[in-house]
């Protein structure tokens, strides 16, 4: 019984590590010194030349709709209101890039020693999709925040309900990394914009 907390702790750490490393790594960068509390409105930025770098994503209307909807919802949950591009404090745009990646299944940990063919790990390739969300200050035209999540592309081309869930999850995880000041303000402002 005394070993249970340690087992749970190690299990928890393993689950978190696996989640970070293999399921959906998320990260963000922001402009230091930016007062995010002064931003109240946003608009979709001018269309990027190639927001979706891969034909499979461009041909998937569910993916585009889901990304737009999820970003709108996350911003509004944080108290930011959508405005016309002339009046918005922030422009938002996103990119979805696809990169070919390798993964290796190594035998280390299971066999301390191996001979010839046994030593070979299994190498396979897959397409990784990276969803990048950029937030630009409309006054200075400077990028103030960029957040991203990575996931296997094949999971983003699945059945519409599965794509919807994964996009919601990815956007939610990305937006959780917004600077704290924005989220803190949202708790005050959010009730005012709720119908």
């Amino acid at each position, binding site marked *: 019984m005394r070993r249970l907390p340690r087992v749970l702790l190690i299990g928890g750490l393993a689950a978190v590590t696996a989640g970070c490393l293999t399921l959906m790594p998320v990260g963000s*960068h922001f402009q230091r010194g930016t007062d995010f509390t002064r931003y109240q409105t946003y608009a979709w930025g001018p269309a990027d030349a190639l927001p979706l770098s891969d034909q499979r994503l461009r041909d998937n209307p569910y993916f585009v709709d889901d990304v737009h909807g999820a970003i709108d919802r996350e911003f509004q949950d944080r108290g930011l209101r959508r405005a016309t591009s002339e009046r918005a404090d922030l422009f938002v745009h996103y990119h979805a890039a696809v*990169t070919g990646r390798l993964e290796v299944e190594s035998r280390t940990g299971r066999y301390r020693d*191996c001979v010839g063919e046994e*030593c070979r790990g299994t190498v396979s390739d897959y397409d990784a999709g990276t969803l990048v969300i950029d937030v630009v200050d409309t006054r200075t035209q400077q990028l103030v925040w*960029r957040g991203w999540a990575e996931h296997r592309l094949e999971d983003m081309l699945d059945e519409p309900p599965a794509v919807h869930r994964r996009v919601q999850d990815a956007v939610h995880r990305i937006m959780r990394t917004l600077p704290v000041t924005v989220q803190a303000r949202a708790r005050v402002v959010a009730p005012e914009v709720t119908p």
Partner: protein
Amino acid sequence: MTRIRGLIPIVGAAVVAAVTVACAPVTVTSFTAREVQVSRYRTYDWGTVDTAVPGDPRLDNNLFFHDYLRGAIDRQLRSRGYEQTALTPDVRVHYHAGAAQRIYISGSEPTRERCGDCAVQVYDEGTVLIDLVDARTGALVWRGSAQTDLAGSVDDQARMEKTLERVVERILAKLPRRS
């Protein structure tokens, strides 16, 4: 007390992992054009820089990455006696950054038929390349480059900045100090 003692290996492993990631080895190379004495150049300015970072969509046109990298290069050039000027610089500085996956085979004898504790790992290798071009002739006079394991350093902004600082310092340590 028993519980604390039980946590020591876990905390220790976490610290070792953090230190390993923070101090991933950096491989540095540099080239100097024949019959050029780089230390005789005194001033520099920035040339055109391509903000694309092939191989890593997170860094592609990422203002924060490029601003920090540029600042780190400025700091190291200054510390080696070079001065920035917008008028008539002696050299123009360019840089390129990229990322690619690499395969690493570890083990006690990985090149032989038999090996103990062999492991194949895939890692993300980042490359930074700094060029100094003679502003008068347009000829490349010095190139320094470094590769390191990115190992989660892009997702964490502070760690990315530390990595960039260390990489640029290592590259420009190869540049002769101004005479």
